[in-house]
């Protein structure tokens, strides 16, 4: 008796993860191409397609480790995290954490941070542009009211902290990068990833600037965020930083 559709789907999903076809084999038609071969073709196609999608999202990771190694990480990830929805650009949220625990990548301790940056760039790239807060929008607000104002971060904007020089690792991994070497001991990096008009990008922040943006993102007023940044580094330049962030269009107005 044929399996109920629900059971067939469950067995198919189990086969796609494990590759063990004993349970499902009887439900698959076979002629000149045997059923087992049909299943293998489908499973191979699925893994290759998803690995290619991951390579598009995590292109810097792929550049760093090369395609064969990337695909072996990707296949291991896919087997334990098949997509839960059909949009491939939204697939791979758990990949950075997976890279962090992947035994064979243990010799590359910075790789998970690179994956986090790739994922943040992917999210920013797929974020709507929308209306952004500009200096002109704020010019009508009385100066004494500015400190208590709150601003929101535009969709796709986020701060990434790494204990490695992530910006330089990223630069060295780009297709047309110079052959300059990167010193892994180059110190921490704080990056601000955001949506640009035609793509996504990031800039390097100081620690105090990262504290400022993180505080704003958590809902602090401009004054409280500035005080937190001053506490991180007394030489924090509020005027330059705020101006620069406004120019990058990373803020949105909040309903006050």
């Amino acid at each position, binding site marked *: 008796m044929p399996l109920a559709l629900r059971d067939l789907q469950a067995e198919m999903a189990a086969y796609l993860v494990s590759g063990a076809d004993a349970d499902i084999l009887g439900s698959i038609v076979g002629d000149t191409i045997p059923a087992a*071969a049909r299943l*293998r073709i489908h*499973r*191979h196609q699925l*893994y*290759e397609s998803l690995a*290619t999608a991951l390579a598009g999202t995590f292109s810097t990771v792929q*550049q*760093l*480790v*090369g*395609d*064969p*190694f990337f695909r*072996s990480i990707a*296949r291991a990830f896919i087997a334990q995290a098949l997509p839960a929805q059909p*949009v491939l650009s939204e697939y791979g949220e758990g990949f950075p954490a997976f890279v962090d625990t992947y*035994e*064979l*990548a*243990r*010799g*590359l301790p*910075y790789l998970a941070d690179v994956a986090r940056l790739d994922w943040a760039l992917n999210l920013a*790239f797929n974020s709507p542009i929308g209306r952004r807060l500009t*200096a002109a929008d704020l*010019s009508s607000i009385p*100066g*004494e009211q*500015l*400190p208590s104002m709150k601003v929101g971060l535009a969709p796709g904007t986020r701060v990434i902290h790494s204990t490695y020089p992530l*910006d330089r*690792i*990223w*630069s*060295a*991994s780009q297709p047309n*990068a110079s052959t300059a*070497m*990167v010193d*892994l*001991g180059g110190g921490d990096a704080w990056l601000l990833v955001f949506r*640009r008009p035609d*793509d996504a*990008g*990031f*800039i*390097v922040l100081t620690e105090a600037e990262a504290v400022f943006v993180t505080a704003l993102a958590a809902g602090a007023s401009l*004054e409280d965020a*500035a005080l937190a940044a001053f506490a991180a580094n007394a030489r924090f*330049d*509020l*005027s330059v*930083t*705020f*101006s*620069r962030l*406004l*120019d*990058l269009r990373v803020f949105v107005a909040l309903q006050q």
Partner: protein
Amino acid sequence: MSTTRIAIAAALAAAIAAPAVTQAQGNVEKCYGIAKAGKNDCQTDHSSCAGTSKKDGQTDAWLAVPKGACEKIVGGKLTSS
């Protein structure tokens, strides 16, 4: 209004009033960007059937050594020991 709050208000007002001046101070850094090709759901590099093989695709599962840009990272290892 405290002295600190006045200073913060002044700094914020300056940022809004004179963005060109702060840019001239050289604090605007290079911005790195990505350019992505469009992603189609069932597409691989060559064709929709590029992944179609009768093999199970595990032939390179033994690969444990990355071959890529890692050589440029001093202090990173190339082997996965």
